[in-house]
Every structure is written in C-alpha cells, then in structure tokens.
C-alpha cells in the first residue's frame, strides 16, 4: 500500500512537467498574441512588435519555456502579463472559489445520486428503476447552460429566491455563502446525477446478483441488513472512482457555469488566459487543476483500496 502510494505520488511531478510542456506548446497554436491582447486592435504594428520584444514573446519557444520553468520551480510564479497582478494569490483566490462551488455541488449530488442509484439497483426493471434511470439520463443530456439559464430565470429573476450573481460577497456567513452557491450547483448536480446514479445502480445490480448476497439472503438475514452490511460497500466501489474523476472537472472545467452565474473560478481563468496568451497565469492555473485531478483520483483509489481488502492486498 505504501509502495503504491509512493509510486502514485512520484508520478505527479513528471506528469505536471508534461502538462506544463503541452500547455506551453498548445498556447502557441491559439490565434492572437499577448501584445495584441494588451494593446488592442487599434495599436500600430510597430507598437505591437515593440511590446512583443519587451515581453520577450519574440524569443524561441524553448527559451521562453526554460525561462518560465526555471522561475516557476523556484517558487516565482511571476505576474500576469496582461493583468499585472501577482499570479499566485490570484490563482489561489480563484481556486478557493472553485473548491467551494465543487464542494457544494458534490455535497448535493453524491447523497441524492447514491440513494436513488441504489434504489434503482434494488428495484431493477421495475417502475422505480425505470423512472430514476430515464430521468437521470434526461437530466444528464441537458447542457448546463440550458438548465442554468432556466434556473436563473425562475429562481433568480421571477421568484427572487437566489442571487443572480453567484460571487460570494466578502465576509458572508455560511448560510449566505450557501445561498449564493446553491443555484450554480444545481445544473452541475443535474449533469452528474445521471452518471453517478447509473454507476451506483449498475454496481448494486451486479453485487445483488452475486453468490455471497444470495447466501446472506438464504441465511434469512433481513433485506435491509443484507443491503447495508454486505452489498453497499462493494456496490459503490466503481462509483467512488467515478466521483473522484469528476472532481477535477468540477474545480477547473466549469467555464460555462462560471460565465452564466458570474462566478470567479478557475475555469474561466484558464479560458481567458489561453485566449489572451497570458502564459504565467495559464500555466499556473493548468498545473493547479492538473494537481487537483491527480490528487482526487488518487484519493478515490485510496478510498476504494481501504474499502476493499482484496485490492489493498493485491497492491501490496
């Protein structure tokens, strides 16, 4: 187990290096350039060239990468080339926002999805199962910008129950925070619900069909006891892995939701810095998100290993 953990942790550094290299290369392909972003469409070509030179954007790609990397690894994340603001506090403030929203979304999504998924799995091919499966699939198919607008119009504009702007004001209480974050969390829940619930259902169907469950039932144990004490732990293992894989998306991939609900998270920041060629911000944000991806996946694997001794011992 320890060796497994060390191996996975050891993979993080080379993976991040690879990500940084890819991001640097891909940013070159995105149209536009940093000097034009800063100076706008009305600057003369001479002004743009002069600024490119001043920023070092006219140097070879590898030279620029080496320069950035040498600073980054020594803890100097630099300033945003476009916004002139220090990168680290800027990115971490956005990270805190994204994590808050992801947490709220997960806290709503996981219990509902698991309960309904398990319920469907226990009533396979019966009306309960059909209703949960069909509704889950339908909700997953609705893009978040559609459901988001709908929720904003109904609950934000017409009923006025929730703020239209999800950004939490400074010094807000926990209740106030939740009130701001609930509305953007719901479209995320809808997207994730069908996926997680179907995984939970499939796991439950699979486990309930296994020999050890049949034995428990034949022993005369009550059904609720069999489900909670014997089936659930094994049935949810694949679901945990799936949830772990979604955390990275929830933290760093919510461009549409962040735009729609005016929420300052990492997703829109990655998008803006990629379009604007703001390499220090783009690299820092992408690496933070990549780290979240890896850590959340590793955590999910560890939880699975802890819940399932066979996996734990196999890895050892």
């Amino acid at each position, binding site marked *: 187990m320890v060796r497994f953990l060390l191996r996975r942790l050891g993979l993080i550094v080379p993976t991040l290096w690879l990500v940084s290299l890819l991001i640097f290369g891909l940013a070159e392909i995105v*149209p536009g350039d940093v000097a034009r972003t800063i100076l706008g469409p009305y600057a003369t070509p001479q002004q743009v060239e002069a600024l490119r030179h001043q920023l070092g954007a006219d140097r070879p790609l590898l030279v620029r990468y080496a320069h950035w990397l040498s600073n980054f690894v020594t803890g100097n994340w630099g300033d945003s080339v476009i916004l002139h603001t220090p990168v680290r506090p800027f990115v971490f403030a956005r990270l805190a926002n994204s994590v808050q929203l992801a947490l709220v979304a997960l806290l709503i999504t996981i219990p509902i999805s698991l309960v309904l998924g398990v319920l469907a799995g226990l009533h396979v091919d019966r009306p309960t199962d059909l209703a949960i499966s069909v509704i889950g699939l339908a909700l997953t198919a609705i893009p978040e910008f559609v459901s988001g607008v709908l929720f904003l119009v109904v609950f934000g504009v017409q009923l006025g129950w929730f703020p239209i702007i999800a950004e939490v004001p400074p010094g807000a209480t926990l209740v106030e925070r939740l009130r701001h974050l609930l509305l953007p969390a719901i479209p995320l829940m809808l997207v994730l619900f069908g996926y997680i619930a179907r995984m939970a259902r499939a796991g439950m169907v699979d486990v309930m069909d296994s020999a050890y469950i049949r034995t428990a039932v034949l022993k005369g144990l009550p059904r609720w006891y069999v489900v909670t004490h014997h089936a659930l732990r094994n049935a949810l293992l694949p679901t945990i892995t799936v949830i772990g894989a979604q955390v990275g998306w929830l933290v760093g991939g919510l461009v549409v939701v962040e735009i729609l609900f005016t929420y300052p998270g990492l997703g829109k920041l990655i998008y803006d810095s990629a379009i604007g060629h703001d390499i220090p911000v783009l690299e820092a944000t992408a690496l933070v998100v990549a780290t979240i991806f890896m850590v959340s996946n590793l955590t999910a694997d560890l939880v699975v290993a802890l819940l399932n001794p066979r996996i734990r011992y196999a890895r050892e």
Partner: protein
Amino acid sequence: MRESPVQWEFGQHLLEELLAGRITRREFVRSATVVGLSLSGIVSLLAVGAKQEVRAQTPQVKKGGTMTVALVPPTAAVDPVTMFDAGAIAVVQQVAEYLVWAENDLSLRPVLATRWEPDQNGKTWTFTLRGGVTFSDGRPVTADDVVATFDRLTDPKTNSAALSNFKGILSKGNIEKVGQNRVAFHLDRPFVDFPYFVSSTNYNAVVLPKDYAGDFEKRPIGSGPFLLTAYSPKQSASFKRNPRYWQEGLPYLEGVELRFFAEPQPQVLALQASAVDMMLATPFQGSQALFTDPNVTILTTRSSKHRAVHMRVDTAPFSDKRLRQAIALCLDRPKIVQGLFQGRADVGNDEVFAPVFPDGPNIGVRTQNYQKAKQLLQAAGFSGEVKITLTYEVYQEVPQYAVFLQEMMKPAGVNVVLEQMTQAQYYGSGSNQPWLQVAMGITDWASRVTPSQFVLPAYTCGGVWNSAHWCNEDFDTLAKQFDATLDKTRRRSIARRMALIQQDATPAIISYWINAPRAVRKRVQGVAASGSDFLDLTKASLA
C-alpha cells in the same frame, strides 16, 4: 466670455447658414461649440434665450446611494494610456476627465477646458483651462499636466492606444504651454474637428498628472467625480464620491459599483433581477427580452457604429469595380436593418458619412436592383455563377448579417461561401491578420465622431486599416480639404464629392449604422445613452 475675431467671424458665418436654412439649429450649436464659441457668444448670436444644455433632472433629485453598472471586464490592466475596451474606459471615466466631453448630438461640453479657439487656418488650437480644479490627491490640474498628457499619448515609444488617432494630426513635442492656464496644440496640418481629438471621443485623452507612471490601478489619480476604492480584475470596481470634485453638489451618487460580466446574457438576467441598475451597452442580439420589459427603460442614441464589408480592389474578382457595385446593389438595406435590429439602425449607403455626422451629404440611397446588378456582372464578363468567399468574425449580429448577404446575392448569380472565424482569429496578429488580408470580409467598426476617423485609417492610400486596399488620390485630397475647411457650405460640398467617389468605387459595403441602446432600471435618472458606450455618471441619481 469674449470670442476671438476668428471665432466671431465663424459664428457670423454659421448664423448666415442658419438663417438661409442650410443648417439646422442643432447643427448651428454643434458647429459653434466645436470652434469654441462660448455659450454667451452663441446666445448673443442667436438673440434668443438659448438654454444651457443640461440633462433632464427633476428638482427633487435624490442624493446618495450606489449605482451598480453591468459591463464587460477590462481585457488588460487598466491604464488610461493603453486602454481600448469599454470596460477599462468606463473605469477610467469615473476617475479622470477630459478637456471636453462630446455629447450625443456631437456638440462639445467644456470640462477641464473652459474655451478653445483655432488660429486663422485651424492649424493651432489654444485651450484655456478651468481654474481651481484639483486632482484627487489635492494637487492642482495645470497646463503642465495637460502638456504631459498629450505628449505621452503622441509618443511613439509609449503604448498609447491614441497614437494611431493622432497620426498625421498631432505629433509629440507640438503641445505647448502658453500661459499659466493655456495650452496650444500645433497640428501637423489644419484640422477643423481637432477639439474632438482632445474630447471624450478620443477616450485615452483623460488629463493625468504630469508624473503619471502607468500605475493607474495602484494610484488612480484624476480630477473626476469618483475615487476608485477597490479594483478586482475580471470581477468588479468600486468607487466613492470625490469630495474634492470641482462641480459643486456633484456627483449625486455616493458610490458606483462596476460589475464585470463576461457575456451579455448574464447582464440581462442581472438587470431583470435588479442585481444591477443598468447595462453599459445593450447589444440588441441576446437582449431582446429587455426591450419589452416594463421595469426597464431603453435609452437610445444614433451612432456611427457599423460593419464594413470590404472587397479587396487589388484582388480578383473584386478588382473589377462593376462586381463590387453589383454586389452592393443586391442588398435590401431596410430589410437588413429590420431583420437584424428590428429597425434600430440607420440605412447605410456605402460611404462613411453616417447620418449622425452633421456635415453628411445626401446622395440618395442605394436600393436593391437585381436587374442592374446582373447587367453589371455581364458587362464585367461574369457570364455564369460568380463564386466568392466571405470571411467574418463571430461578434454580435455579424454571423446573421453574413447569411443575409449570402441569401441576397444568390438571385444575382453570386454564390457566397461563408468562412467563419473567432474574433481572435479574424484580427490575428503579425503577418496573419485576416481582416486586412482576405479578399472579402466583414469588420466591426466602433462609433467615431468625425468621418475622418474612418476615412484616414480605412479609405486613404496609406491607411493602416485599409482592408480593401483601395487608393484614390482625388479622394485623399478631398479628405484633407474636408479636414481643413471651416466654411460649412464648402465642407458639405467636399463631403458630397467624397461620398460619390466612395460609393461609386465601393471598396466596402456599409449597409447600416447601428443605434446604441442602453438598458436602465426605471429608478435610474440623469444617465444618457452613448454611441461609444461611454459612462458619465456625474449627474446620475437613483430615485
């Protein structure tokens, strides 16, 4: 206030034009303010009780409160010298001021300058500064600050966004302090509309302290009605009332909150939910719900905002003028205006004199005429189907406009292939700037207040944004004469000749001039629409 002989002579000339019915009363006032005639001078000329232009204010204006405005975020760090987008401009306009503010009817309102006058040929303009104005840090606004401001904006070594505006008109080092509170601008050539270049329409031209070091976000010093108290990139900017503001009793508001939104849709929802009091700009596309909302007022003004469909005159098949003319004749312009804006735009005529410009000529509207279009195509040797590619950016109504063009050209036998790009792709950079390179493209032009601001960069031989690569020396000569001519009748005659040349050559199709709507909640008072999406909240209040 005493007028100079030149100003007085020009005033008399304007009066003659007015009495002869050649200009309207509105044009009289506008032209008089451009050459710096004082209000008392205008009043005495008209010999009627001219009213000072003030915004509609109810006597019981409510003071205090914070107004929240929805707008797009500044693209880059906010710096008055380099700013170019509506977000940054709105931030700066609360804190710093211009010598002159251009109203929607293009008359000029004195701000930090109380008067201005040209020399005999309009090559040197002298501005007198208002006394007793201080920056927010307590230092007085002086002639030295004004000289430094314009030297900075005209310096090729800075990243001034106004540099291209001043090119060929005002050069660094030609701004001179000629007294304690007087500044002279020695122009590169005579330019009648020069006061606009130091006004709000040249949005970078806010007067900053002499020692401004490009650190506006850290030291936001200006003489404006508000003080910037907090700025969070891509999120918001907070302002509070400037207690040192020179206009007594103003501003009415205690504070202003600028809230940045990436897209118009969330702005619309925020306005409907009363989370914001107004939208800085309300593009018709995506905001239709607001136009029928009973809780929202739509302020509107004409503007010179338009889309130019350029055709490269040096590239086949557009090198033949008859093809360009034929394409222009395919368009049903009123239908385009109706389809794209439900009528909220003026029909364009393939020349740069927008209806909002007072010296614009009336050369007759180019109407749809397929028969003539087909004849022109035949005469040009296009016997079968003509295949052309139209490149355009994804921006507001432009994609729909491209489809309109495609459909309208079809009956004349012109097959248009559409090539869509993102804005970043379309404008590109370095050697890859499709908007200046493709044979036919649709480019969005922001509003300007003088025709020359379109003519010089886009339609003269050396124009930096001459997408059509069109060059007509007669047109260039006329453009220079237009800029140097004070006489209204002569100026209008020159404009007419320019318009006819341009329409005949058709380097670009200009089929509409977009009105600028601004959506505000009913409680908002003292705010006007702006053709350039500018934000003057000096007299704004909340009911």
